C-alpha cells in the first residue's frame, strides 16, 4: 500500500489514544486502515486509506485466572505471548487459531486483535467451536471514537446485544478491537491420530463423518490427497491420500478411544502417537498441506462436510487443488490467481450451498472480485445500516469486505 510515511502510521499505546485517533479521523471523514501487525492484511479486499491505525503497541495480558478459565489481553498482544501464558498453566486456546504467516509471506507475529478480527479457527473448530464462540468480552472503539464494551469476564452472559460476536470476524470494519477476554480450557494430556491411508475423498469424508458421529469426542477430522500429505513430514511416509482423525484426552482415554474407533471404522488404520500427532495437526491448522505455488491464489470454502469432496472435484478442472479439514466442510484451495479461476471456485461453493473467502491473491484480483459472498438484498440493507450504526462516517477499513462499504 502507498501510505508508508512514518507520519501516516499511528501506533497508540493506550486505548484512550486509539479512541482519540479514531474520533479525529471521523471528524475529518478520513479513512483509516485498521490493523495489528499486518500479518493478514493481504487477505480480502485492499483498503484505500490515508492513514494506518495499528493496535500493535497496545499490549499486555490484563487478567489471567486459570481456575476461572478466562484470559484478557490488549489487542496488540502477540498471540504467541498468550499461547505461552496459558500453556504454562496447562491450558490452551480452544479454537486453535492458525498461524498463516507462511501462507501470507509475513515474518511478523500475529496479534490477538488480528486473530479475533478475522475469526480464523483451526481444526478443533469442528468439535469445539470457532474463535467467536470463545470471545467472552470485548472492548472496542467504534467509528466515532467511543469506547464500547460487550460481554465481560464471566463464562455466561446474555446481557444486551452480543456485540462480541458482531465485532469478531468484522475485520476492523465496525470497530477497533482494543481488548479481548477469551475462554480457555485445560490442554489435553495426550493427543492421538488415527491415519486411514488410501481412501479417496468420498470414502475419506465418509470415514470422518462416522468418526465425528461416534461417542469418542473426535476433535479433528481432515482428509489430505497424496500430494498434500507429502508436504507434511510425519505423513509423507504413507505415500497416499490420508484421512486423519484426532483424539485429545487423558492418555489412557486416547489409547482406548483410538483403538475402539479403529475397530468400529473397520478400515486399515495406523495410530500416530503424541508428538507426531501434534506436529501433524499444527501443519493442518496452518495450511501447510496446501500445494500453493508462490503466486497462486488461496481460498477457504465452507460447505456442509459431505459436500467437500464435490467441491474439490468441481474445481480440479480449473487447476485448483486443495485439502479438506472440519470433517470435509472446510475446503482449502490454491490455484491460478485470475478471475476465471475465482469464478470456478465461487460456482463450486455456491453449488454446494456454502460460502467462500478469497484469502490470498494479488491486489488487483482482490479489488476486482467478491472476496466473500455478496449478501442477499435484505441482509445487504441490514449490513449497511449496522455499519452506519457503528461507523457512521465509514472510516474504518472501508471496502475491506464489500466494495463501497
Amino acid at each position, binding site marked *: 500500500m502507498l501510505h508508508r510515511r512514518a507520519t501516516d502510521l499511528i501506533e497508540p499505546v493506550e486505548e484512550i489514544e486509539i479512541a482519540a485517533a479514531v474520533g479525529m479521523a471521523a471528524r475529518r471523514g478520513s479513512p483509516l486502515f485498521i490493523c495489528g501487525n499486518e500479518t493478514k492484511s493481504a487477505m480480502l479486499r485492499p483498503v484505500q486509506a490515508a492513514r494506518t491505525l495499528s493496535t500493535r503497541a497496545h499490549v499486555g495480558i490484563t487478567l489471567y485466572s486459570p*481456575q476461572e478459565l478466562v484470559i484478557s489481553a490488549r489487542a496488540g498482544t502477540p498471540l504467541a505471548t498468550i499461547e505461552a501464558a496459558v500453556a504454562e498453566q496447562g491450558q490452551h486456546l480452544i479454537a486453535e487459531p492458525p498461524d498463516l504467516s507462511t501462507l501470507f509471506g509475513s515474518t511478523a507475529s500475529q496479534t490477538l486483535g488480528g486473530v479475533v478480527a478475522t475469526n480464523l479457527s483451526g481444526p478443533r473448530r469442528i468439535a469445539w467451536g470457532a474463535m467467536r464462540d470463545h470471545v467472552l468480552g470485548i472492548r472496542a472503539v467504534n467509528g466515532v471514537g467511543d469506547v464500547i464494551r460487550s460481554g465481560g469476564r464471566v463464562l455466561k452472559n*446474555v446481557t444486551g446485544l452480543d456485540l462480541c460476536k458482531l465485532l469478531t470476524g468484522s475485520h476492523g470494519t465496525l470497530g477497533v478491537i482494543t481488548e479481548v477476554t477469551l475462554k480457555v480450557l485445560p490442554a489435553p494430556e495426550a493427543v492421538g491420530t488415527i491415519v486411514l491411508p488410501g481412501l479417496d475423498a468420498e470414502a475419506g469424508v465418509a470415514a470422518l463423518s462416522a468418526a465425528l458421529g461416534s461417542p469418542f469426542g473426535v476433535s479433528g477430522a481432515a482428509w489430505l490427497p497424496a500430494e498434500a500429505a507429502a508436504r507434511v513430514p510425519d505423513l509423507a511416509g504413507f505415500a497416499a491420500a490420508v484421512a486423519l482423525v484426532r483424539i485429545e484426552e487423558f492418555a489412557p482415554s486416547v489409547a482406548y478411544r483410538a483403538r475402539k474407533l479403529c475397530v468400529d471404522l473397520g478400515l486399515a488404520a495406523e495410530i500416530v502417537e503424541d508428538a507426531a500427532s501434534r506436529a501433524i495437526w499444527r501443519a493442518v491448522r496452518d495450511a501447510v498441506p496446501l500445494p500453493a505455488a508462490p503466486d497462486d491464489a488461496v481460498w477457504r470454502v465452507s460447505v456442509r462436510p459431505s459436500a467437500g469432496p464435490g467441491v474439490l472435484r468441481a474445481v480440479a478442472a480449473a487447476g485448483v487443488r486443495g485439502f479438506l479439514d472440519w470433517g470435509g466442510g472446510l475446503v482449502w484451495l490454491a490455484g491460478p490467481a485470475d478471475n476465471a479461476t475465482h469464478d470456478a471456485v465461487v460456482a463450486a461453493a455456491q453449488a454446494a450451498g456454502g460460502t467462500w473467502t478469497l484469502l490470498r491473491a494479488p491486489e488487483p484480483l482482490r479489488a476486482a472480485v467478491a472476496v466473500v459472498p455478496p449478501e442477499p438484498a435484505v441482509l445487504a440493507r441490514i449490513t449497511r445500516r449496522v455499519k452506519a450504526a457503528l461507523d457512521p462516517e465509514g472510516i474504518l477499513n472501508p471496502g475491506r469486505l464489500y466494495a463501497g462499504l
Partner: protein
Amino acid sequence: MIRQPAPKADVLARRDLIVAGLARLLPRDGVIAEPVRLRAYETDGLAAYRQVPLAVVLPETTEQVAAVLRYCHQNGVRVVPRGAGTSLSGGALPMADAIVLGLMRMNRILDIDYADRCATVQAGVTNIGISNAVSGQGFFYAPDPSSQLACMIGGNVAMNSGGAHCLKYGVTANNLLGLTIVTIEGEITHIGGAHLDAAGYDWLGLLTGSEGQLAVVTEVIVRILHGPEGARAMLAAFRSNEVAGACVAAIMASGIIPVALEFMDRPAIHACEAFAHAGYPLDAEALLIIEVEGCVAEQDDLLQRLSAVCQHFDPIGLKVSGSAEESAAIWKGRKGAFGAVGRISPDYLCMDGVIPTSRLPDVLGRIAAMSDICGLKVANIFHAGDGNLHPLIMFDANDPASLATAEHFGADILRLCVEVGGCLTGEHGVGVEKRELMGTQFTDIEIEQQRRIKSAFDPDWLLNPNKVFPLREAA
C-alpha cells in the same frame, strides 16, 4: 413493580380493524381476539406480571409470519414474539397495544442429517423434541435449559439459553448453524446453513440472544452431537459455602472439565431433599453434583481424580454413583429444585446473575446477609463451573409489599454480581425484569450503541417493545 408505559390509544382504537386485517392473512383459526381466550397468553414464566394482548396470531408457515409482520409494519402495530412462554425474565410479556406472534404451530422437524450432524427444525419445536427425534441414532441437541420439556427452540435462540451441561457443550449460540428470519418489513432471509462460519458479519451470533428485538426466527439449523458412551455423577457435601467454593476452583484448575458442576446451598439442599428424597446429607452447608462422561473405565478414572480433589476440602460426604440409577437419584433432587422450592413457598423469583467463580463464597455470604435484612428466604442453586447463580427468592404474591421486597432483593443481588465483575443475566435474558438495571452494567454510550443496532433492524421499534432497553421518558 416494574412500570410499563401506557398503551397507544390510537392502536387500541383500531383493534377491530387490526384483528380483521390479520385474519385475512391467516388460516381460519389463526387469530385469537376473544378476551377469554386471550387470557391464556397474558403472562409467561415471570408470572407476577400480566397483560392481556391486543390479539394473538398463530401462523403456520414462514410466509404467514412474513405477511403478519408486513401488516404490522405498515400499520404501526407492535409485535411480541412468543414460543412456549417459559421466559423467566418476561421476554414474552404481552402489551395491551401489541399483538402476540405465537410460533407454537410451527412445530415440525424438517430435516435430520446424521452424516453432517445437523437438524433443521421450525421455531416451535420443543428443545427436548429435537433430542427425542435424534436419540434413536444416539444423538442429542446439547443445550438443556430446565424448561426443556416445554420451551421451544425459537425462544432458545431468542434468549441464547443455556442449561446444566453448557460447561462442556456450550450455550445455544455455540450449537447453531443457521436461521431463517423474517424482518419487521416482512422479508424472509436465510443466515448460515449446514456449513460452519459464514463469511461476512456474524448475523447468527448477533441474532442469538437478541430477545426478539431484531427479527423473528421461524426456522433453525442446529448442530446435533452423538452422545458419550455413558455418564455418571458424584455428590460431595461440605461444611461451608467457602470450602465448597474453594473445591470448585480446585476442580477447574485440575485439568478436568466435568460435563456438569452444580452447587446447592443449605436451604436448597433441604428443600430438594424434602421433595425428592434423593439422599442428600442434611447436615451439609453446601453440596456439589459433578458429572463426567465416557466409558465405564474412563468414568472411574475421572471420578477417582475428582474424589481426590474433593478429599482436600474435608468433605462430610462423598458419594460416587455406581450406576445410571444412582446417578439419576443424585440428579433427582437438583432437577426437581424449582418444584421443591415451590412447595415451601408458592411464589419465588428465580434470579440469574453470573459472577467470577472465585467470588463465590463472598457473594453467597453477602446474599445471606441481604436475606436476613429483608426477611425473605433464599435458596441458591447454580451452575458452579461457569458462575451462573440462580438464587430463588421466596415471597408471598398475595402481599404486594412482599413482592416489592423480593424484587428489590433480586435487583440488589444482580447489582452485586456486576460489582464483583459479573453480569446481570447468564441465560434468562434481560426481558422486562432487568431492563432498568442495564445501566449498572453498561454506560449510556454503550446502551445507545446497542439501540442504534436495534434501529438498524427495526427502525420503528415495533419488535418486542419495552424489553431489554431501559425505558425513555420521551418514548
